């Protein structure tokens, strides 16, 4: 955790995020992310022994269910109104498998 984030890691994380970066951008983000992570590393000073994690501020909230009944849903035409490309009642995307 102490080591600074390197360019290889920035490229790896960008690939995971489906973002492509120029060489200049890799250098810039590497420096900025390293500075931010240096600051964030002060979290190590906090003693969290035996402290449970909080993922959500509403403590009482457990699973929430809606009644299982048929209701009106968005018509296909409305759901597709923003589609960059469509075919019949489907969203159309470039080929996934050759």
């Amino acid at each position, binding site marked *: *955790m102490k080591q600074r*984030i390197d360019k290889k*890691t*920035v490229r790896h*994380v*960008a690939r*995971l*995020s*489906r*973002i*492509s*970066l120029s060489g200049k951008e890799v250098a810039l*983000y590497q420096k*900025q*992310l390293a*500075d*931010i992570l240096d*600051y*964030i*590393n*002060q*979290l*190590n*000073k*906090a003693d*969290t022994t035996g*402290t*449970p*994690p*909080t*993922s*959500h*501020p*509403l403590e009482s*909230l457990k699973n*929430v269910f*809606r009644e299982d009944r048929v209701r009106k849903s*968005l018509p296909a035409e*409305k*759901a597709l*109104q*923003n*589609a*960059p*490309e469509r075919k019949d009642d489907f*969203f159309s*995307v*470039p*080929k*996934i498998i050759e």
Partner: protein
Amino acid sequence: MKQISIPDTTKASLDRIAAVNKKLNAIIYLDREKVLKEAEGTRRNVGGIATRGIPIAIKDNICVKDEPTTCASRILKGFKPPYDATVIRKLKNAGFITVGKANMDEFAFGSSCETSCYGPTRNPWNLEMIPGGSSGGSAAAVAAGEVSMALGSDTGGSVRQPAALCGIVGMKPTYGRVSRYGLIAFASSLDQIGPLTANVTDCAALLNVISGHDEMDSTSADLPVPDFTKSLVKNAKKLKIGVPKEYFPEGGIDKEVEKAISKSKDVLKSSGAEIVDISLPNTEYALSCYYIIAPAEASSNLARFDGDQYGLREDAKGTIEMHTKTRTAGFGDEAKRRILLGTYSLSSGYYKAYYLKAMKVRTLIKNDFLQAFKVCDVILTATSPTAAFKIGEKINDPLSMYLSDIFTIPANLAGIPGISVPCGFTKSGLPVGMQFLAKPFDEETLIRTAYTFEQNTDFHKKKPNL
């Protein structure tokens, strides 16, 4: 008393926008004819509701049916939601007139309203300055009188900080108080929709309309909603106000801001409140904790913007290539930075060291507040460590930009409600804001405290010259 009709009120709002919005860039989308038609319809259809005909601006990350909703991002260019967010449905039912979409930092990532793909919004008090962010368009529109109210969203201070920097009232309700159905998600464990208004009375009235349980948002709390206007009481007797020493760090808060806060404490004291010193010992970790949790959740929430179903799509031969090209062209610098940071802290090998650690520290921060509220009813702090800064001043230094939210972030981590009220001006004439924080679901005490302060001061009556 002179009476004016709803179409006249709406027209006044539209005329004001026409007169000053070029200078401010607060409203980024407006269909004048549609708004006027809606105003005519409201006059005929809605009877006897106090809020009917009030023009309200909507932050660009809240879905308004068939109107562009883009989060001020190129990646959502042309997106028109097929449905209304729950808050919009409630506003329309109460007779509000939605007047345009308000500018914001892209996907609400920012504290200055500069990362918008539509260009920065300017502060009505000084056009060289930022209005705060991310709900900077909403705050500037209200401060400039373009609209009387606006909705924003607050993930780390995005309602309260711009309200402070523009000299108006802004509230982040308790996590769960207001439905987020139709709010485009940034960080789902932190986001909350909140009102930006010219005064505390309007804040209470707007909160009444937007609050309440919604089965479309599983994180909205199934609790009764009080009439918040009943808390508009000018009386601070028996009110214990805690002042946390960690919020006044040596060198970490502007002298003029500190002075305004100090004077404000005296106003509350003479209104009957008791001021007590308190400690929130884990405050120093809040910003770090937030900058793990918020980007982590954001990187996950923003995975949906890939060009498949809506918004921008860049041409490519295969799907992965299309996704990559679309996201690379569609997201701005700060959005990319946060996606990279969030993906990094969630990736294997770093999850435990960063994300899990941050969630544990979040518990410590939350417990600090629970302890504090055993000895006080409400907590008083500055909303932001400085008044508005210059456009361009911090845009290339992300960390110093992040520090602008250092006093507002802890409330989001703990899920508690907070309000910012105008409490003074700097020598150069920029507004200063004061923040009150209260227990979960105790917005009533916030409103009472804020109203008492407001009614004993004149800061909210001053308007910018435009």
